């Protein structure tokens, strides 16, 4: 039994070294970015730099109506809800009663602006900080962070994406930096226990290793290589002591109720568990925000689930003393039109809202504003790239230092977006 594991470790070590070698191949951070000392030179003195150990991105897919959530308006733009005052001094809508209770922790960016009003392209922009192009796929934040800061845990992945598959993950960075996808938080990480009887395990793996050998030599394909990397990370992870982090059964029933028994709620709970275990970047997706029709009906369900889970997450992190090192961000691909179309609204990228909380971000603060009707920012217009740069800054990444893509082009986090230092207390 013992020898089995030693042998496995040997295989893993070998693969691990190979993987590192491959990761370095065809891709390099410019040499002066090699050491952390150098990297931090300029940004380190600025507020908020390195304030976040982890990031939780709550991604509301479909386009959250800013007017019906965090940027209420009166007059013609007013939706089916009413504006409610919070102890933070700003107003949100009556669709978010639980969020109102944690408003003092929140920082609203009401001056988000973008140009892309189509889901796929706009989601791509919000996830990567870049507009979609035919010839290159850009990495998402978790992968960037892994590139600059390395792994966040010896065996657990540096990035986990909950409720979605890992597309737009690593981009041009190595496949090992792509997020680990958990499509159903209730199910957790399925099939993580080896089913092979211990006596056959070593032999099976040795045979598998040999079977793969010839194919690798024959087919020198990047995706085949990526699969080798996943295979070795899988073997490592299967032996990790921390696998239990994916099991929500280990949470108290009351805790699970607090977050809400739905995919988003349980996803947020899983995100908290992952942060506790040292995972750096977690994305939790919530679907159903594309409210062309029937905003009241959709907010009753999708909106209420979000409200409960988001408020529970903030309160839970605060109560555990984790909020100071965890940056929570509510993102969405665009807002919705100030003009009602029946009981719904169309897509509106020109002005919308994102929310930050934790990790030294100002509490109970509003950054920027849209005009009286909610069409576009009147001050402090904030691009998606700026938001990315701000989050990366909080993670302790000097965002103006480029990474070279395999084809030799320099890229920076947020496509030259600027961190908003003003957001940090």
């Amino acid at each position: 039994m013992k020898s089995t594991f030693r042998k496995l470790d040997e295989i893993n070590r070998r693969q691990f070294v190979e993987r590192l070698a491959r990761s370095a191949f065809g891709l390099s951070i410019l040499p002066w970015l090699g050491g952390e000392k150098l990297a931090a030179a300029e940004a380190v003195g600025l507020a908020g730099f390195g304030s976040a150990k982890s990031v939780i991105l709550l991604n509301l897919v479909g386009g959250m109506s800013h007017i019906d959530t965090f940027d209420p308006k009166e007059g013609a733009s007013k939706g089916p809800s009413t504006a409610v005052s919070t102890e933070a001094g700003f107003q949100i809508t009556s669709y978010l009663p639980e969020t109102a209770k944690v408003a003092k922790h929140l920082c609203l960016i009401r001056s988000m602006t973008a140009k892309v009003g189509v889901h796929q392209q706009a989601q791509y922009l919000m996830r990567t900080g870049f507009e979609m192009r035919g010839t290159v796929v850009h990495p998402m934040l978790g992968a960037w962070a892994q590139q600059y800061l390395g792994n966040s845990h010896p065996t657990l992945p540096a990035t986990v994406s909950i409720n979605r598959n890992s597309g737009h993950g690593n981009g041009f960075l190595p496949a090992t930096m792509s997020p680990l996808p958990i499509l159903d938080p209730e199910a957790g990480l399925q099939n993580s226990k080896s089913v092979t009887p211990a006596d056959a395990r070593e032999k099976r793996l040795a045979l598998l290793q040999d079977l793969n050998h010839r194919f690798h030599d024959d087919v020198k394909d990047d995706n085949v290589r990526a699969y080798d990397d996943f295979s070795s990370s899988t073997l490592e992870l299967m032996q990790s002591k921390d696998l239990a982090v994916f099991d929500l059964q280990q949470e108290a029933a009351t805790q699970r109720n607090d977050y809400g028994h739905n995919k988003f709620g349980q996803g947020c709970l899983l995100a908290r568990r992952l942060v506790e275990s040292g995972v750096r970047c977690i994305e939790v997706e919530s679907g159903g925000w594309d409210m062309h029709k029937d905003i009241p009906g959709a907010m009753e369900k999708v909106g209420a689930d979000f409200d409960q889970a988001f408020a529970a997450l903030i309160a839970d992190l605060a109560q555990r003393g984790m909020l100071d090192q965890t940056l929570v961000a509510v993102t969405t691909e665009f807002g919705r039109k100030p003009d009602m179309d029946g009981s719904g609204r169309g897509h509106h990228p020109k002005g919308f809202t994102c929310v930050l909380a934790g990790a030294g971000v100002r509490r109970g603060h509003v950054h920027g504003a849209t005009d009286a009707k909610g069409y576009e920012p009147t001050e402090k217009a904030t691009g998606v790239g700026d938001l990315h740069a701000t989050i990366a800054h909080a993670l302790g990444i000097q965002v103006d230092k480029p990474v070279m893509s395999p084809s030799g082009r320099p890229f920076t986090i947020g496509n030259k977006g600027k961190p908003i230092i003003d957001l940090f207390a």
Partner: protein
Amino acid sequence: MRSLSKLNSRRLVIAIAASLISCLGLAVAGPKEAQKEKRRLAKAMAQEKAEAPVPAKPAHDAASPWHDWTNAQDQSLKGKFIALESGLLTVEDEQGQRHRIPVTLLKVDDRKFAEECRQLQPRAFLAADVIARAAAKLDETILQALTKAKEQPHPLADDATIARRLHLDLIGRIPTAAELKDFLSDAKPDKRARLIDSLLNSPGYTMQMFNWFADMLRVKDDYGKGARAFLFEDWLKDMVSVNRPWDSLVKDMLTADGKLSESGPAGFLLRDAQMPLDGVSNLLTTFLGANVSCAQCHDHPMADWTQKDFYQIAAFFGATDGYHEDVFKQIRRVAKNSNVAAKGQVLQMLGSNAFDLVDLPKNQLKFPADYKYDNAKPKESVTPELISWTKEDKLSPAYKVEVSKPKELRDEFAKWMTSPDNPRFATAIANRLWKKLFGLAVQEPVSDLDDPKLASNPELLAQLTLYMKQAKFDLREFQRVLCNTAAYQRQASPTPDLANGHYLFNGPLVRRMSAEQAWDAILTLVGGAKIDQSLLRRGDELKLTIVEGKVTEEAAKEVMAKMQEEGVKVPREGKKKGKGGNPNQMAGFYEGTVPRNLGGVLLARASEIRQPAPESHFLRIFGQSDRMVADTNATDGSVPQMMFLMNGNVQNAVTLASSTVLQAVSRAASQPDKITVLYHSFLGRNPTADESKRLATALDSGLTPADCAWALLNSREFLFVR
């Protein structure tokens, strides 16, 4: 007596047919007369379906072409011959419903009869020499580009590689050991062409094409608000089965009327009925590669499309209404207060009634309130106008459309879009099919063909466009041409870095199997070629839920009563559990054979289970699209995929002694034979001498064939297509 179709037992008159007894008295005629009579009949049927597959009203006169189609178990279905394509017989019953039956399940006589009926149909098959000439011309064009770039084409791939590639590309699964052996031992020189023909004419072709369409058309069971699109899915499969030409199929979808629970093709536009502008942008992108989506909100930053262009073309759908909120509110009201069933059940039962594709008397589309350009005013009504790519486009006959009658706007649009003279329609589908077979389109991305000069080989793209038109949009014939090119049959290239320049098709690309191919490949190992015979069909029962007029408590009761009368289960409320369909729940929905459940895996192919599969299903873990956005099937790796193969239910099923592959291994007499069967089954090739030795060592050292099967399933080579 059981029936061929699940519906039969409930609604159809079942003819007891121990032998071939047709309602037209064939049994009493002598053998020769019978033959003659049959031929006459078949001819009559074929004529009637000359316009196939436009559903003809069932004729009730004496000469009507009814026939009792009987299978080996003496179960029969009374119906009219519609088509025999891809190994699937399509018949229409007296209620006008279509059924598909794998022809191999029929009695020999009926199989022959179906074949005769088919021979009499007008068919657009291209002759073998036409195919060969077209393929050769494509090769010439590719070779020219390669030569110019000082590159060489790859050598031709060997037979085994080609067999695996063709099976996966055309029927969506790997060959069984037996199928591969047959092909390898065939000594005739034209065996590749014959394999292509036979695969294109087998039931797996429909399944494979359905998966391809499902990703592109965002096929989804559940449209939200209780509405389910089963009828659309059934229809799409029927259309592929009868090889409906692409232009007709698209036209059917764009011009359909009616409820989601009533009309199959209406399901396409109803998919986006709650967001019609997005729907227009989706269909222009998918069918024409027109990158107009940005213009929905503002003038396109790079291309020529303006916001006005977008609104003008969207205005062709300005008099179309699909989602009826008033009806949904009625349904919700009934659901809230009803005693008929639980709230969720009532929604599921009646929800489809709010999705009804109708034409309005007036075009409703207006420019948006924040319209900021000078060429139109905010909130002004939009006059429909077609988009064009060049100034000359508008001179083509496709552009002669009539926009004065709101009720006919969609029809006019459909005429323009599906016309062979449309500047992009043929190119878009040709380019997509090329990508399907070569792993990369001639012009990428397939969703943006605005500037055809950006194609990696513009001559090749032009030639493909021409052939698509010459094949009259017959997608099967077109693929026949592509598969017969030397370019397709060459050794594959690793994924090229397009940032370094165009890929000129020295051969197709090495690809990871799509999620659907991987699932169906694993099923092949577990259940053999029989998995092609289980056909899911769930739409018929939806028809019982149609409510004419206002949705009231009374109407809900009536629907409930109808469903009970027909023995249809009211959908259950609450969360759907189970991985890819609880077999007990789904069992009643299969035509052909009911899929078995082995080792925790339901042996139903990817196209024959829920669409899309549930999140924790193998298919989704391996990248099946969630069907929210077009063309998002992915082939990237992940840790959960590896865990699934190492420890999940699929490895459990494959390593069972009763799996098809291990059965075949146990039948093999010698150890070398067993090793060959393993290699044939998993990797579709003979093992090398070294590999045989390695496997022999493994078997001698105490590993079982099941252990070897586990290792082969987990090997990189299994998941990849060369």
